């Protein structure tokens, strides 16, 4: 039982070959390229969604920040599609692996910080000290702000990992509870099943929300630094 609980989070390999690469690349084939003026329904809806999201997400940025448009849109599409695909039964979600989330968060965060330091050095350094702090508190506050800055990529990665992993784990556990309760008392099993359905709805929402939050925070860090 213990082995089974976390088995779904192990990196999948078939006959010793790591097929996790294939799994990570899989969502990209679900977004076909629009080849024509008028496309099929799938592409039309995807185009409309991407237009909507990109307009809303890039509204706050200036010219320099908007060069990150492709990066941000790819990010939200990748995280969203990976999370949603992970809700299918017997599937592997790459975003449950902390390694991958760190691999996404650290370079993006570092990119924003380095951009800020390169082009607006004084303003970036000024972020370490909030406005209107009394004089004796300044050294402590600078230390705190530095810590908070370096926590940002960790928080991004761990937030995503923890949310998705917790969701998957809960679904697994409550499914197991339903399975165990069927033999004991059918009504309790039924109630548990209803809870499972509600949880699934939540997980769908969480999948999308986490993608959005990740991308939003990166864009926020970008906004601060451009």
């Amino acid at each position, binding site marked *: 039982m213990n082995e089974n609980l976390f088995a779904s989070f192990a990196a999948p390999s078939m006959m010793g070959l790591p097929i996790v690469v294939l799994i990570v690349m899989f969502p990209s084939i679900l977004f076909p390229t629009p080849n024509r003026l008028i496309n099929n*329904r799938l592409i039309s*809806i995807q185009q409309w969604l991407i237009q909507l999201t990109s307009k809303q997400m890039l509204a706050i940025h200036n010219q320099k920040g908007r060069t990150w448009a492709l990066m941000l849109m790819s990010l939200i599409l990748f995280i969203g599609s990976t999370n949603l695909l992970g809700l*299918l*039964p017997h599937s592997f979600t790459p975003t449950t692996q902390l390694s991958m989330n760190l691999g996404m968060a650290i370079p993006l965060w570092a990119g924003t910080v380095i951009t800020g330091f390169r082009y607006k050095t004084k303003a970036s350094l000024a972020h370490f000290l909030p406005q209107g702090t009394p004089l004796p508190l300044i050294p402590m506050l600078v230390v705190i702000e530095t810590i908070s800055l370096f926590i940002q990529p960790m928080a991004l990665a761990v937030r995503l990992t923890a949310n998705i992993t917790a969701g998957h784990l809960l679904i697994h*556990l*409550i*499914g*197991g509870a339903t*399975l165990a309760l069927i033999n004991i008392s059918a009504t309790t099993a039924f109630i548990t099943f209803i809870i499972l359905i509600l949880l*699934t709805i939540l997980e769908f929402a969480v999948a999308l929300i986490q993608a959005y939050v990740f991308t939003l925070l990166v864009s926020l860090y970008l906004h601060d630094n451009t």
Partner: protein
Amino acid sequence: MLRRMVLSAAAAAAPCLRNAALLGPGALQATRIFHTGQPSLAPVPPLPEYGGKVRLGLIPEEFFQFLYPKTGVTGPYVLGTGLILYSLSKEIYVITAETFSAISTIGLLIYVVKKYGASIGEFADKLSEQKIAQLEEVKQASIQQIQDAIDTEKSQQALVQKRHYLFDVQRNNIAMALELTYRERLHRVYREVKNRLDYHISVQNMMRRKEQEHMINWVEKHVVQSISAQQEKETIAKCIADLKLLAKKAQSQPVL
């Protein structure tokens, strides 16, 4: 050499073999033919409007048609049920916690698709229609603009045809103005000449009048000179006597 002959004969026979002929080492150096096929991208073949028919959302209709001659209508369903029961009973598919999450997830998805599928499809179609309508509008606006330009041009041309009326009127005006000026000048000439002639006439009249006056004065002077003093006294006495007579006559007659 024989090989080259064979290859050239083959190249003459079929166009697709020409490309193969190029692969023959050292053969047909002179005839290098590239791009004998159609360009791969254009024209883009049209998309089918509706997808293939499926039953239960997963299994294409062709499978049912394929099994129909041998097993009839219920054949594929029995096959499916049998496979599922077999895998369950032999524990090829184990019922675990994952089964329930699968049931809930797939059930949710089926519910959402059944309920909102058609409206989402309509929404996608509406997006495409909007795009086409926008382009169509641009096209129609362009056509309308050009049509308006054509009409304006035609009306301008029609106006040009009628321009000669304007010129005739202007010509008439100028002719009248010329006529007017001519007559005015004529009248002035006449007046000037009359002036001169009047002057001469008045000079003549004045001369005659002066001569007359002079003559009358001369005659009067000589007559007065000729009257002697004696005659003057006699004439005056006679006049007084006549006057007295007249007075008496006037007194005697009654006043009327």
